């Protein structure tokens, strides 16, 4: 079996080359937000690029600070989402990682994660004078027929929109292939996390974070499935990652992309983050629905960030039980207001069930909002609390 490392390198290369190649071949390129039903777009031969994922790459390669500074020269406030600031900053920046993203021909935004992405894309649309399509997902309180119909109608409009701007029709066979591989990738993605369900853990949580990219940018592909299969196979029998009696911690929320190991603090085999619930946000449900388009409705409306707070708290509390978590580190990520809103009530709820939690304030991509000493002090103190 090919190694996961080698497959991941191919996925990265293919993704970035596909953008460049598309421009050469005059194939349409769309910028999409993280939870856009790309299966539809790819089944219409549109190459999809993720500016949020690119912002992650820029942050991980140490470029975020300068890019955000560049965006501020364009009068953007530093209080905006750091992904959007990085994207705005690329315009004034010299050498970009992977040569940057190709120019888009259209923009597709979904509000199932936040409203900032929609406003960010709206600005891009005005600036680049290209069409924007926005998919509105009502907050996923319960599965209602009227909501399903509402989203289904928008998917029909999306297909019309793409057809109008590209002349391409929806290839149902391609759509089926995409949806099938997406569903399979999600099953495998869950298996990757479940490697750490019981002690001892089999894979460092930061390595799971590093493995997220195909789930975002290539999930409707066979290669993504091959990658996760290889990853599970390589780690399922490992027993050198932690000791069986380590204190099992959950990282709640976004990782810090600018840190080499994605989480701050000095963890050792006695205190280990076994899970970051953020990476599970991509474990979408493709199983409900009578046809391929129908399956994309719950998959993209029932996303973590589109849940009401009580549902988010229930989900995290359930993970705490399933993964026998002893303490939770909550990342109050100032860039993401939707994720930020659940932190205080979650901490309170966990505390009621005897699970200690600590809140640390920072940012997912902007290192200017990361104070190493302050964060480490909170994590060390938390360790002391769990140890005594």
């Amino acid at each position, binding site marked *: 079996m090919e190694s996961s490392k080698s497959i991941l390198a191919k996925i990265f290369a293919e993704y970035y080359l596909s953008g460049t190649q598309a421009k050469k071949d005059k194939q349409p390129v769309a910028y999409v937000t993280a939870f856009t039903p790309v299966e539809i777009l790819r089944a219409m031969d549109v190459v999809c690029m993720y500016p949020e994922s690119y912002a992650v790459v820029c942050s991980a390669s140490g470029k975020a600070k300068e890019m955000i500074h560049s965006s501020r020269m364009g009068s953007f406030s530093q209080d905006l989402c750091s992904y959007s600031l990085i994207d705005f900053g690329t315009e004034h920046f010299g050498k970009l990682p992977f040569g940057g993203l190709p120019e888009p021909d259209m923009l597709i935004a979904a509000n199932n994660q936040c409203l900032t992405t929609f406003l960010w894309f709206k600005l891009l649309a005005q600036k680049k004078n290209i069409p924007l399509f926005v998919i509105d997902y009502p907050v996923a309180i319960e599965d209602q027929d009227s909501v399903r119909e509402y989203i289904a109608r928008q998917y029909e409009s999306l297909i019309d929109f793409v057809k109008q701007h590209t002349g391409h029709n929806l290839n149902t066979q391609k759509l089926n292939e995409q949806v099938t591989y997406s569903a399979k990738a999600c099953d495998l993605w869950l298996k990757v996390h479940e490697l750490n369900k019981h002690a001892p853990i089999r894979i460092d949580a930061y390595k799971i974070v590093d493995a997220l990219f195909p789930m975002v940018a290539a999930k409707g592909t066979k290669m993504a499935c091959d990658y996760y299969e290889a990853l599970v196979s390589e780690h399922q029998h490992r027993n050198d990652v932690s000791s069986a009696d380590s204190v099992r911690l959950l990282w709640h929320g976004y990782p810090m992309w600018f840190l080499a190991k994605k989480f701050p603090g000095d963890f050792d085999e006695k205190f280990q983050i076994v899970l970051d619930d953020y990476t599970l946000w991509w474990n979408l449900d493709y199983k409900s629905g009578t046809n391929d388009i129908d399956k994309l409705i719950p998959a993209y409306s029932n996303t973590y960030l589109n849940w009401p707070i009580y549902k988010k708290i229930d989900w995290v509390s359930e993970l705490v039980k399933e993964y026998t978590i002893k303490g939770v580190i909550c990342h109050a990520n100032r860039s993401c207001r939707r994720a930020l809103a659940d932190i205080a009530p979650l901490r309170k709820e966990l505390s009621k069930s005897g699970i200690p939690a600590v809140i640390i304030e920072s940012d997912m991509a902007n290192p200017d*909002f990361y104070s190493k000493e302050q964060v480490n002090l909170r994590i060390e103190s938390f360790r002391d609390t769990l140890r005594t």
Partner: protein
Amino acid sequence: MKYFLGIDAGSSYIKLVLIDMAGDMTAKSIIKRGADIGASCQKSYVDLLSEFKITKDQIAGVIATGYGRKQVGFSDEVITEITALAIGGFAVDNGVRTIIDIGGQDSKVIAIDESGKVVDFAMNQKCSAGTGKFLEVTSASLGVKVEELDALSQKADKVLNLSSTCTVFAETEIISYIAMGEKKENIIKSLHSAISDQVIGLFRQVAAGDRGKILFVGGVSLNKAMTRELSARLNRELLVPQHTQYIGAYGAALCLKRKNETAS
């Protein structure tokens, strides 16, 4: 006679406490932190030994806590302030279940159980609002010394709206109030109210906040106006221990003593 030395290398002051083998505080000192924390601690250590005529051979161990704990090169151990304050606070009064500490650049609320174990804590986030620095900066802009705050605060007849989230903005607001002819006493009362807002926010986050006695420690607890304001807002009595600025250093020294006893 042997001693254990606890050093609390705080963001504003460095506090040293020597305890004897019985755990009693036998000597203490406090100095303003210099630019080089390690050097400030070293000097303070030498001065303390000299003042109390103790030789280095009599020191059974050194432990550091506080913001600069890792820069105390000669310490044998380091612990976080949360643990040190919990041990020190519980040793002062074992009926204490909540400790409020307002230091130079941070404030924290710690909940402990009936055995003195930390069960929860909350700290201010990335700004100095709700800390001693907030009071220092804002009172300086009024031309008032910290020791005058209590008497002036008692003469206030109203509380003004002040930013409780940013020291810099609060200072700007104070300047505006002065320009509008607002009474200094009212501004001072409002400063205490703004700090209380922050600390009460932390207090409410902490699970055991409504049980047992509350100990108020740290440099800001020396300011009676602050104790009064917090006590009134929480509707609870606050205990301010005799050596309130030294509780972290004292708790650290006790921690080291216990570790040594367990090891032997």
